[in-house]
């Protein structure tokens, strides 16, 4: 077991107050311990943690570009392997870097099966560049490139189902989702992933990018994250060698509660409620619940 009291992510970084990804950085390093090498993609976390010469990372850290972290990590791993070194290699990348522009390098790295853990911090948009849509942006969320408008109710595509299907298809050893709402769970899964041989993937909901989601202040980071889970729009689960092995059960609340708290969904409620759109989102949560079997039955 790694020492959970280790603080390997330094204070003084420039994240917004209450930033979920900033909290996640701390938690990940608690899960990995200090014998790790972190590979980052361009994005909010990279920017807020490493303005030269003030790095917040007390473990080895490298950033090259937005789209190539998985390939850089492959290279790091190959070098370590060649020299029988023991550091774990962990990518920490945003959802844009993962779902969109990084797909090529990720596909290659997972196919080659490097012994790396790829962690996607999913704040559901490109925050660093000002809240543009990514493949992880949920249906109907208004972002600057999928704005709600006269002809639009926001993002017209569902959140891409990247981890379970795509990465399992590439032969990932371990695939899990987690949320900053449950810090111990994050740490546990990270620890498990870095100790699982082969390419592993963890996607962590770090919703409370209050800046990007809007409508609530930074203090609600964790509260909103919990709501996402409680309404079924986010499911925390684990898959090993392609099989679902665990999923967090909940007594579900309606998606409205979660949506209403956020500015990016405001157009669904103002000037008046767009019921058919809300129903579609509820259907997504219902489908998730069914797929992962997360509903706690009445008598449970």
């Amino acid at each position: 077991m790694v020492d959970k009291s280790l603080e390997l992510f330094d204070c003084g970084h420039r994240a917004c107050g209450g930033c979920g990804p900033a909290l996640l950085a701390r938690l990940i390093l608690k899960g990995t311990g200090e014998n790790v090498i972190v590979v980052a993609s361009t994005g909010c976390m990279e920017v807020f943690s490493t303005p030269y010469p003030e790095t917040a990372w007390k473990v080895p850290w490298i950033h090259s570009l937005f789209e190539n972290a998985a390939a850089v990590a492959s290279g790091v791993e190959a070098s370590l392997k060649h020299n029988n070194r023991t550091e774990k290699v962990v990518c920490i990348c945003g959802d844009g870097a993962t779902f969109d522009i990084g797909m090529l390098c990720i596909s290659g790295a997972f196919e080659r099966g490097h012994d790396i853990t790829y962690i996607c911090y999913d704040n559901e948009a490109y925050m660093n560049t000002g809240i543009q849509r990514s493949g992880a942006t949920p249906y109907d969320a208004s972002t600057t490139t999928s704005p709600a408008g006269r002809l639009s109710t926001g993002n017209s595509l569902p959140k891409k189902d990247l981890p379970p299907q795509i990465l399992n298809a590439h032969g990932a050893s371990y695939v899990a989702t987690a949320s900053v709402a449950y810090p111990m769970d994050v740490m546990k899964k990270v620890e498990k992933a870095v100790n699982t041989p082969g390419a592993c993937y963890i996607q962590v909901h770090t919703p409370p990018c209050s800046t990007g989601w809007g409508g609530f202040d930074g203090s609600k980071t964790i509260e909103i994250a919990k709501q996402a889970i409680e309404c079924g729009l986010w499911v925390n689960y684990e898959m090993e060698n392609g099989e679902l092995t665990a999923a967090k059960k909940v007594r579900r609340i309606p998606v409205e509660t979660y949506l209403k708290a956020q500015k990016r969904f405001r157009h669904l409620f103002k000037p008046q409620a767009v019921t058919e759109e809300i129903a579609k989102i509820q259907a997504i949560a219902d489908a998730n619940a069914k797929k992962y079997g997360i509903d706690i039955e009445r008598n449970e």
Partner: protein
Amino acid sequence: MTAAELIATAAFKSGVYSQAFPAFGVERRGAPVQAFVRFSDEKVRLRSQIYEPDYIVVQDSSLIADVDVFSGLKAGGIALVNTENGNFEGVPEGVKLITIDATSLALEILGLPITNTTLMGAFAAATGEIELESLEEALRERFSGSLAEKNIAAARRAYELVKEGGQ
């Protein structure tokens, strides 16, 4: 709409050429930011940052402890500071300090601690560089309905306060 853009727009409405730009940073929400405005009767061509302003507006006086906000302010210049109380160190000699409690004012009139419009009203009064009417026009263009009216009311109130002698 930042305060700088608001001044520029109001100036433009007053028939003056203006240019507003932020000090382009990567700061996240919460960190201090800076913006510049130039206005002139002629087209503004210069693109460098402003090192010797005629006026400075400080939206959050707590910064004064950490940052030398008055640096470069020209003698005869005006420093407009949003604050509850009125004493600061480091105000250069020959500079006119005008303070206003824009936050309270904004909370009172807009119901939000957003001080842009309030401060711009004060700025118009303090400097005479932009006309209150132009500012109102700019606000009306930017906001709609009751929001525009509230903002105009805030700007006007601040204008009057400063005209009445400030503080």
